[in-house]
């Protein structure tokens, strides 16, 4: 089939009397976007809400154990963790807001989205891996302080070695799980963006 014939077919198809009424279109405007960036924003909101809920539960638990010897230590830890989470959530939200420019040239928008998504994945990966080490160390320290004075059936150095060994296993498992999880969540989309940009760039150099 000749290309002019294809053009003619294409032109005729655009004259189609399509059955979309104003009411249907207006209804669509009330829906929220489902694109990848919109999904990540929604997930961030859920994360923030979950942390608020968690904080509520922890504050309630602490307030019921006011005689605990490590109350002040717990409160300081909570405040530090809360501040760190706020910094993380703020940085992520800022990144998400700069992540897409739908009315920009396709190539620049894809580049923008790819670069921001890669930054976001690195952030997730680092926060996840550093976070688990910190949580583990803090939990260990709290247990150590709470158990001070108690007699344990194993020597002190074995106790420390056991603690470090379990920690190492946890870190390795978390590292591989994060990689697998992030690949499933964003890996395919990142690869798709890379392929499209590669095709655009490939034609630039030929």
């Amino acid at each position, binding site marked *: 089939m000749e290309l002019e014939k294809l053009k003619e*077919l294409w*032109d005729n198809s*655009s004259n189609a009397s399509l059955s979309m009424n104003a009411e*249907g279109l207006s209804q669509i*405007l009330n829906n929220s976007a489902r694109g990848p960036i919109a999904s990540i924003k929604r997930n961030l909101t859920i994360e923030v809400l979950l942390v608020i809920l968690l904080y509520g539960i922890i504050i309630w638990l602490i307030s019921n154990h006011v005689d605990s010897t490590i109350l002040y230590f717990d409160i300081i830890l909570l405040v530090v963790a809360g501040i760190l989470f706020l910094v993380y959530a703020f940085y992520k939200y800022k990144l998400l807001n700069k992540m897409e420019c739908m009315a920009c*040239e396709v190539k620049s928008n*894809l580049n923008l989205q790819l670069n921001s998504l890669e930054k976001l994945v690195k952030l997730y990966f680092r926060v996840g891996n550093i976070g688990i080490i910190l949580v583990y160390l803090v939990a260990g320290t709290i247990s150590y302080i709470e158990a001070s004075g108690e007699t344990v059936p194993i020597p002190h150095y074995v106790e420390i070695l056991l603690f470090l060994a379990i920690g190492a296993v946890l870190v390795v498992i978390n590292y591989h799980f994060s990689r697998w999880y992030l690949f499933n969540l964003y890996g395919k989309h990142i690869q798709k963006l890379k392929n499209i940009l590669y095709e*655009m760039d490939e034609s*630039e150099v030929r």
Partner: protein
Amino acid sequence: MKNRNEKEFLALISEHEGLIHKICHVYAADALGKQDLFQEIVIQLWKSFESFRNESKISTWMYRVALNTALTEKRKSSKKVSLSFPSSFKDDKAQENVVDGYEENLNILYGAISKLTEVEKAIVMLYLDDKGYGEMEEVLGISQATLRVKMNRVKEKLRQITKSSQHGT
């Protein structure tokens, strides 16, 4: 103000609905996918409508938003408004020409386009819509010289595909 904007927007979409349907037809695999993509494109157009200042042509702006949406969309179904979609782009002329193979040729055309890569699909749509290389560059962000080279390859590829489709191979 919002109402006025919405009215203007809806009028604009109704006027250029064919463009959105064509993109959905080219980039989505099935009827459900087309509905999803149509809704997402309309939402994205609405979101960027306020910032549209007539600095570029309406078709350029619409193509940019629609292609950006189609190319970055993660395809999966979700809650949607039920819309009635035509199974293909039929019109009065099409009905008249069914006998002399209009619909068959249209299927060959869309079948051929579906065999192209994502970028080639975008280029060929702009070409078939009679957009010049200048506007193609404005939409895609690829230089005109590169677009020319790419376009020649796509034309050849399309010729080959439609030729083999017509011969039933």
